[in-house]
């Protein structure tokens, strides 16, 4: 276990990783923290990551960040498995626990991680996604306006 302060090397703040989705920041932070806690050295991480980049390069239909964090996640799962920290089966089981934890949480409420939830009914995720994108109809203008009070009113 580490007792180090959770500081970040200033070089990362100057020209560090750009994140296009929040999970990418979580992936970056988790890797940093696992290395700090002594589970692998940063140079071991760089070796694993660069091997993954070489083995599975950016695809034509991927933007840089998408490819980068796809490779990052594959490298992270490999280094974790290689050190027998956790198994692929465990990750897959917990991924499903998290998916159900999201699904069985009322919209807008904080997500609390729970195990042992019932399976998500077949087709329910697709329905939810459909509702979601339907509600997200294209608004080009403001959704609400509070007008200025005109002189004389």
């Amino acid at each position, binding site marked *: 276990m580490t007792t180090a302060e959770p500081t970040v090397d200033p070089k990362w703040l100057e020209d560090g990783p750009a994140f*296009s*989705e929040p*999970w990418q920041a*979580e992936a970056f932070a988790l890797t940093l*923290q696992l290395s700090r806690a002594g589970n692998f050295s940063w140079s071991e991480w760089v070796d694993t990551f660069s091997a993954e980049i070489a083995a599975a390069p950016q695809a034509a239909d991927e933007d840089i960040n998408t490819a980068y964090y796809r490779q990052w996640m594959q490298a992270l799962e490999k280094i974790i498995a290689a050190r027998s920290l*956790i198994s692929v089966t465990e990750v897959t089981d917990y991924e499903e626990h998290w998916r159900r934890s999201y*699904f069985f949480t009322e*919209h807008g409420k904080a997500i609390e991680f729970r195990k042992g939830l019932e399976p998500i009914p077949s087709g329910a995720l697709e329905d*939810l996604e459909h509702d979601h994108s339907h509600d997200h109809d294209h*608004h080009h203008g403001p959704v609400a306006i509070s007008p200025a009070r005109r002189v004389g009113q």
Partner: protein
Amino acid sequence: MTAMGHDDHTLPPSSLALRIKAIETLMVEKGKIDPGAVTEIVDIFQNKLGPRIGAKVVARAWSDPAYKARLLADGTEALKELGIGGLQGEAMHILENTSEVHNVIVCTLCSCYPWTVLGLPPSWYKSAAYRSRIVIEPRAVLAEFGLQISDDREVRVYDSNAEIRYMVLPERPAGTDGWTEIQLEALVTRDSMIGVSALTAVAAG
């Protein structure tokens, strides 16, 4: 969905997002990392790295009228000029605050947010209270953030979604004539680009 309304559920994020949460949860359970450690690092990026990209854009727009015109006309293209990519196909619209109009952004349904320029959203942005109240009573909510919008200014609330993300271009504070872009950039806060705060005039000196 008939038996249960869609508000009874939260749409889970992508498989990769769930997997990273799975690994983090397992590592904490096995005592490999401290709970909260990852969140703390993410917070550092949220507060220090993320909004700086947006601040650069604002400083450039204040300094270069031609860039500002391009930014307001087509935010997505103007951001590409500054090498800001990573957009996943959604369009960026930049909303200019003026003496007549004050803009503020929200995502009423979930937490769509201009990650690429502002980093990660603050927790209040994701709260049910902000998401509903900013639409119903924007002036009252802004006042709670300490921002009084005078009656002669219109307040416009923009709802971000999967296709369009908004960012507010705050008004340049008085007393900053002749400042360099780097000096200006340091003034710009995350909240001013969400539209819940204004940048105050700076004392000469």
